[in-house]
């Protein structure tokens, strides 16, 4: 089917056929490297206690069993931690979307004094590692009575500079005439936002939602510090705690890891288009 007059268009077309094998072979190797630990985690979670500590190390369980999962839910209370993770991630995402989208749109399209300078200042603040603020933030939350509560985990996450940045970059592309026309028609800024802007921003809203969801679900250091009551633990914190206690029960730990990783993987697989799009956009436009 290759017409002799068709010009080859890619550098790899010059290379002999084995090159295709090489490229795909390397990709396969890379994928194996990336996926192997996760697949093994899944396999080990179905192994009997102690089976993973045998030589030679097994790849698949001899007699797959659900014992580890049963143990997790009945004795280690994973159901509660799963519920906490879902609740906190959902709440933080929903609330932070409101804060970040409003602010991002304002930085892009609403004029106010010092807008550009403030924005540049905020971008500069991105370099400051969050951990610098952790200790005083903890003491501040203690004064506010938010330590060891869901609020202590959610409240600091209500607004993020990165989120505002992402929304602003996207919102820049909203045509000004559209907004002006609505203003001339007498609509209030709030109504314009709700009726015109939000629908236009929906791709970036989904992207930001996915980012925030994944970020808060996986966040481990801050909940570890702020939460003492075990009933409030999220999955990563509970798993860290469990892993220090049950250093020897590897199969149980794998089951816990599966439980912690699977929900995010599923969400990611379902919405990966938006997530990757957002990343790429942040890269090219930033």
């Amino acid at each position, binding site marked *: 089917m290759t017409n002799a007059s068709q010009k080859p*268009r890619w*550098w*790899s077309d*010059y290379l002999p056929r084995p090159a295709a094998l090489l490229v*795909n072979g390397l*990709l*396969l190797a*890379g994928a194996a490297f*990336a*996926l192997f*630990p*996760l697949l*093994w*985690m899944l396999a*080990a979670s179905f192994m009997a206690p102690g089976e*993973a*500590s045998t030589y*030679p*190390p097994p790849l698949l369980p001899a007699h797959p069993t659900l014992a580890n999962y049963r143990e997790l839910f009945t004795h280690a209370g994973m159901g509660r931690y799963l519920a906490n993770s879902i609740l906190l991630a959902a709440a933080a995402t929903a609330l932070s979307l409101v*804060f970040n989208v*409003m*602010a991002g749109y304002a930085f892009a399209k*609403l*004029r*106010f*004094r010092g807008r550009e300078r403030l924005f540049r200042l905020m971008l500069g*603040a991105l370099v*400051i*590692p969050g*951990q*610098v*603020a*952790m*200790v*005083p933030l903890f003491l*501040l939350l203690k004064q506010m009575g938010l330590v060891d509560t869901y609020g202590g985990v959610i*409240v*600091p996450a209500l*607004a993020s500079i990165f989120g505002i940045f992402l929304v602003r970059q996207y919102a820049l592309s909203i045509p000004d005439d559209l907004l002006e026309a609505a203003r001339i028609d007498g609509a209030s*800024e*709030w109504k314009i*936002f709700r009726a015109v802007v939000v629908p236009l921003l929906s791709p970036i809203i989904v992207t930001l939602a996915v980012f925030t969801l994944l970020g808060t679900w*996986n966040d*481990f250091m801050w909940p570890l510090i702020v939460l003492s009551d075990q009933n409030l633990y999220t999955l*990563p914190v509970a*798993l*860290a705690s469990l*892993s220090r206690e049950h250093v020897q029960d590897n199969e149980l*730990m794998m089951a*816990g890891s599966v439980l*912690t*990783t699977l929900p995010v*993987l599923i969400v*990611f*697989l379902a919405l*990966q288009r938006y997530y*990757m799009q957002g990343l790429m*956009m942040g*890269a*090219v436009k930033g």
Partner: protein
Amino acid sequence: MTGRERVAPSRRRARRRQVAWCFVAPALIVIAVFFVIPVVAAFAISLTDFDIYALADPSNLRVVGFRNYVELLERPLFWKALGNTLYFVAAGVPLSLAASLGAALLLNSRLARFQPFFRTALFAPVVTTVVAVAVIWRYLLGTRYGLLNYALSSVGIAPIDWLGDPRFAMPAIILFAVWKNFGYNMIILLAGLQSIPNELYEAARIDGASAFARLRFVTLPMLAPILSIVAILTIAGYFQLFAEPYVMTQGGPLQSTLSVLYLMYEEGFKYWNLGNASAVAFLLFVLIFGVTLLQTRAAREQFAR
């Protein structure tokens, strides 16, 4: 519809400014209260010897000026932590970037099949929780029963005590960090690669350039701005190494995986020497800031040419 009020433009602008502030105020308040103020407070605390005694009774607090910083700089453990962190950055960032770039180039190639599958597979580790996968890796790196040593033994290499030997613990952590993060930069670089116009490759091909020459003279120069930003962000991120040592090695063995941030965590939340912990955090911030500044300046000069 409300009437088209003939309001003076200046008043309209003023009102619009007010509304604009209403839009940004919630987010700005959160950031100011829960980020800016704590950062300033952290600096203030770093000038005192705040510790558990002070927590119990504020009269036990002493303002010590920059003594915390001086003592920290005189403390061998701080330099060890700094050395470990720099080792991690110096070895991990190039490896990670090479992996990301390599994967992006492979994915971008016309010869690649099943691109969506490979892209997702290579990206999957990024999405997972550090804690969960660190548990897996801790097991896979086990001396007696770990699969890595088993695989190495089949090619004749003696079992290595990855997490227990001070020489190999940090390499193990680097390997783990690269595995976890390379997918993130891969996607960004992929976007960059896809934005390079085909005409440039065409022109080079017409000029008789080989595949590798095209890589060197078209791809890499066009990718340089994005690569530079990615490098800056990755370096800043790698300086903040914490979760991996926390879960896998607890800073050991022999404190060979103790990072600066881990030191801060231990001082602050294990021993409640908040004065010291804040000093460590600020030193780290200054370091990251300095490095980032150097890099951005170098990058700007490079691209100005």
